[in-house]
């Protein structure tokens, strides 16, 4: 049994099927949901986060039907912390006060909410801004506050819709060091457009396309199965053309870079470079291009990632 189980979850908006029979089982792991814009990621996460009722299918959190009776809905939501894509706060209240009222609504009690709000503003690097009205927050600060709001009641399943959007690289790293700390014994499901983020921080990656879950697995499995082979890129000197060696796949950047596909770049790199030197051509630069989730994404959806 998983912390969260989605069984054939479908969501229609009129005739449009936003999410089509998606199933997920997640148990104490970090799952990244990737997909092009309009692929149904936000709709799926809203259903898993308890904010949008599926048209059909079931979602169980800790074995409790998230969309069952009112009692069950309340119990299941105690285990979920959802941070929606759009940040929603009371604009005249400070970040700290917003966390307090959200904590109160989630049943922490006023003192419990205040204590937890203090912990979270510290943990998410908002302590210096905690007493400013959120109307004066930057996009990145609002995003961190939104994540804090999802964590306020210390949930076991954390659902985050694009937590990294609007964060600079350093804030992204801080966020993930916190999430990785929190992830122990918990399940995190999040959506992202960033293949690097998905590859680095997730135990499994799900790629959605047109409402369907098209592939899933660990990042390395997906790369192995769907990504093209690694490439060796030789940056050619002025006036030198590419050598037609084994694995030659053409050129890019105005014919200034020759590309060679190889299963084992470590083994073949020396031979390719030696072939150029033998012709008295010294490459300006040599690169090994290993494919990542971006390439997997492109392969399975036919669309490039918008990072």
């Amino acid at each position, binding site marked *: 049994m998983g912390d969260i189980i989605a069984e054939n979850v479908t969501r229609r908006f009129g005739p449009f099927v936003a999410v089509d029979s998606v199933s997920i089982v997640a148990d104490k792991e970090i799952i990244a949901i990737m997909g092009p814009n309009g692929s149904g990621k936000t709709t799926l996460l809203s259903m898993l986060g308890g904010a949008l009722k599926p048209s059909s299918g079931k979602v169980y959190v800790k074995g409790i039907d998230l969309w069952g009776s009112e009692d069950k809905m309340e119990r299941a939501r105690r285990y979920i912390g959802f941070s929606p894509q759009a940040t929603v706060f009371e604009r005249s209240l400070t970040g700290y006060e917003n966390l307090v009222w959200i904590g109160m*609504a989630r049943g922490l009690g006023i003192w419990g909410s205040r204590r937890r709000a203090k912990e979270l503003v510290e943990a998410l690097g908002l302590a210096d801004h905690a007493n400013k009205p959120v109307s004066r927050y930057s996009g990145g600060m609002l995003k961190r506050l939104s994540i804090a709001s999802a964590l306020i009641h210390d949930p076991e399943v954390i659902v985050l819709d694009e937590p990294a959007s609007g964060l600079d690289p350093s804030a992204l790293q801080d966020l993930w060091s916190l999430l990785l700390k929190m992830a122990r014994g918990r399940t995190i499901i999040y959506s992202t457009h960033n293949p690097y983020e998905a590859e680095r921080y997730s135990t499994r990656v799900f790629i959605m396309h047109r409402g369907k879950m098209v592939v899933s697995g660990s990042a390395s499995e997906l790369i192995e199965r769907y990504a093209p082979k690694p490439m060796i890129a030789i940056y050619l000197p002025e006036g030198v053309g590419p050598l037609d060696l084994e694995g030659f796949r053409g050129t890019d950047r105005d014919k200034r870079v020759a590309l060679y596909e190889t299963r084992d770049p470590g083994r073949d790199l020396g031979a390719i470079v030696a072939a150029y030197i033998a012709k008295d051509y010294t490459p300006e630069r040599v690169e090994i291009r290993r494919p990542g989730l971006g390439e997997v994404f492109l392969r399975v959806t036919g669309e490039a990632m918008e990072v």
Partner: protein
Amino acid sequence: MPASQYLYEGYIYVKSIFRERQLLFWTIVFPLVYLSIIVAVFGNPGGSNVSFSVAIQDLDNSTLSITLIDAIRNAGIYRVAYVNSSLEEVIRGRGYDVGLIIPRGFGENLTTANQTYVSIVYVSNLQSSEAAKSSLESFIDRFGSIYVEKIIEIARSYMPVEAYRYAIFMAKPISSSYTEVKGSYISTPEGRKTYYVISTIGFMILYSGLFTSVGSIVEARRSGVLQLILSSPIKGYRIFIARIISGIVSISITSTAIILLGIALGADLYRIPAYIWIATALLLLVGAIGTMGLGFIIAPFIRTSGAATAIANMIAFPTMFLGGITIPKFLLPSSLQIFANIYPLSRIVDSIRNIAIYGWETTQAIQYSAPAIAASIAILVIGWILYRRALEKALENP
């Protein structure tokens, strides 16, 4: 689950009130300005302040005409001015309530026992002018009677007893006696101000109650807060009660401000015993939840913030005047009194006035407002049923 789930909306409200100018204005500034204006305009009892402006043309300029004008001036209810131009034009132009022309020969006729006359100019069908005319007419009649009585007194020693008795009878066939009684509490400045304090609280309950409830769903949906709440472990009835508590907090702050200003302006609310305050507070609470219940019935059908404001105004504005909340019920036409009698908040405000001003017992007031209490609770229950359905729908279509 802790009680905090019922209080989160109230927390937001209390934290926001001094930061959002608009909220501060409608919660505190507006009701205080409103009460100040009402008390300044209507706060003093009517009788002692009534006065009429009289334009006088004295064509006689005799001792008696001057005596008459002095008597009018000293009566205390007339403001006298001499006018030389056409009185008809002056009165038509609404410069004065009434005009008086004392013709040439007025004094001579009176001293030579010839009937004389004065001319009163007024605007027909204009209440203030008609009232001024009647008042001045009575005053002049009384002046004539007193003059005749004085003449008879002077001539008494020359008259047979029977002739004297007959002359006195002719001068004043009916004599009035006067008994001065203390006016009811409402006729005092304090009573009048207490009346307006209660009316203003009723008026603010009507407005705040409707505005906090009619737009509750559409506003929360627009801001995205509804999605945040619905994904929280909180049951629908707690969301509903949290909203009601927030409305009650708002109304309590407003009512406290109104009461304090009322006392500062002279309403002697402190004379009301504590148990009546408690009964009054409970009645107001029922009035508030009934009003909010009405708003919750409407809330699920509202699609935009603008529509919420328009609908709340559309209900509150006529109700304020026609429901007997700010304008006393007895001043309304009988057809409109039916509405004022059945509208729950009107009846509750009425019963509070009856306790505070007309000396009703608390039990009497509760009996009087019992149908309104029952109706308020029924309205709230219907509001809850529709609100709950709206929350379920919001989960299906955020």
